């Protein structure tokens, strides 16, 4: 157990170190998010949307920016191993479960970094007024986890295919759409303050993240090793 955790942390630390050498994932995630946010803020702005539509429509915009930014960068974790031909060595050095956990930790860190920068910026630029800040942060944290765990296993799949970039979005989006629906409804509810919707959203997102975690743990070895 401790050995597994140590191995996973080593994999995550290695990924962070190589990431800071090139910053490919960070740049693609961050620049995509900031560019789209600038475009949205310029064209829609804080006052274009009627007050009664604001909680819902701003939640839609926010999650679309987050999801597409995630799809722009989160496949790097596995694709870079195949592109630089370091995957065989990693297969020898660490157990499959540790590799999966390490990559998940790395992706989780990227997502939370993205959320920490993007969401406050979005709220300021778009004038998004959230009533229940605690629940809002909870939904962001749970949603970020479910997003990271789903994209990690899909990234592992597409890293072994021929056309990687386009395939990542094509394979991820159908799996992520129910999550996107839940998160939009839940976030809108934190802005207009309906507790019931928040509760059912939290239940749905937690079960989705949990199931994806279990399935990933069970299936990852089949993807990782031939």
């Amino acid at each position, binding site marked *: 157990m401790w050995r597994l955790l140590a191995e996973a942390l080593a994999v995550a630390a290695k990924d962070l170190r190589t990431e800071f050498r090139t910053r490919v994932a960070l740049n693609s995630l961050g620049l995509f998010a900031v560019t789209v946010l600038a475009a949205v803020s310029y064209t829609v702005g804080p006052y274009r949307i009627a007050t009664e539509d604001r909680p819902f429509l701003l939640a839609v915009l926010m999650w679309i920016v987050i999801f597409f930014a995630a799809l722009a960068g989160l496949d790097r974790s596995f694709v870079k191993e195949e592109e630089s031909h370091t995957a065989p060595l990693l297969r020898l050095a660490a157990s499959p479960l540790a590799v999966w956990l390490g990559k998940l930790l790395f992706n989780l860190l990227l997502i939370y970094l993205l959320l920490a920068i993007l969401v406050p910026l979005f709220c300021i630029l778009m004038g998004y007024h959230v009533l229940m800040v605690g629940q809002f942060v909870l939904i962001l944290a749970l949603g970020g986890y479910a997003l990271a765990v789903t994209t990690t*296993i899909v990234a592992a*799949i597409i890293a072994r295919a021929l*056309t990687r970039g386009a395939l990542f979005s094509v394979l991820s*989006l*159908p799996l992520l*759409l*129910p999550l996107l629906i839940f998160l939009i409804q839940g976030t809108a509810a934190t802005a207009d303050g309906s507790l019931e919707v928040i509760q059912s959203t939290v239940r*749905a997102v937690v079960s*989705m993240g949990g199931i994806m975690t279990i399935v990933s743990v069970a*299936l990852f070895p089949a993807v990782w090793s031939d």
Partner: protein
Amino acid sequence: MRGSVILKWLLLVWLAGVILAAFFYVHPAEGFKGESSRIVFFHVPMAWIAVLAFLISCIASVMYLRRRDPKDDIRASVSAGLGLLFAVLATVTGSVFAKIMWGAYWNWDPRQTSITILLLIYAAYLALRGAVADPERRAALAAVYAILAFVTVPFLVFVVPRIYWSLHPDTIINTRGTNEFDSRYTQVLMASLAGFTGLYIWLYTLGCRIEAIRHRRRQEVL
């Protein structure tokens, strides 16, 4: 061989009977506009087969990961192809019904959203199969994706319509546990479900045989 020919004709006669019964044996149901309720006999079996094909594909995928038998991969891919076909048919029949009852072919009702995502999943699965050259790797990756997709489908089919408001009539597993249709309806619907399931089985075995021959031919060439 003769037995399968008899079965095939039996299936075709049965399906013809279902079509006749759907239009002449049953009276239009109350609460539905005009004759629109008759589409239920075709729409529900299509949706059922779309889900059944998905289930079979997922079971075959699990079997593949356990045994690594190429036949299981063939089963999974054939079933996914048929599932895509029936999901398209379910969408088309559903939107015809939506146009008559609700006034628009498409209005992003949670049910329509979930069938769209099912279509996307099937398409993504087939796209993934097209993108991997090595047959064994393709089979393993496709199997993993099919299982991943399979665990998200219950959220679409059961959770999303439960949490958020839907226009769709209650499904077979309805919340109140009652059946609003009269007995003739139930008879024809069950007959239609059985008939279309038979049609699926027939198409599925044909597809598997064709793919098995292709597989053997490829190996002979190599």
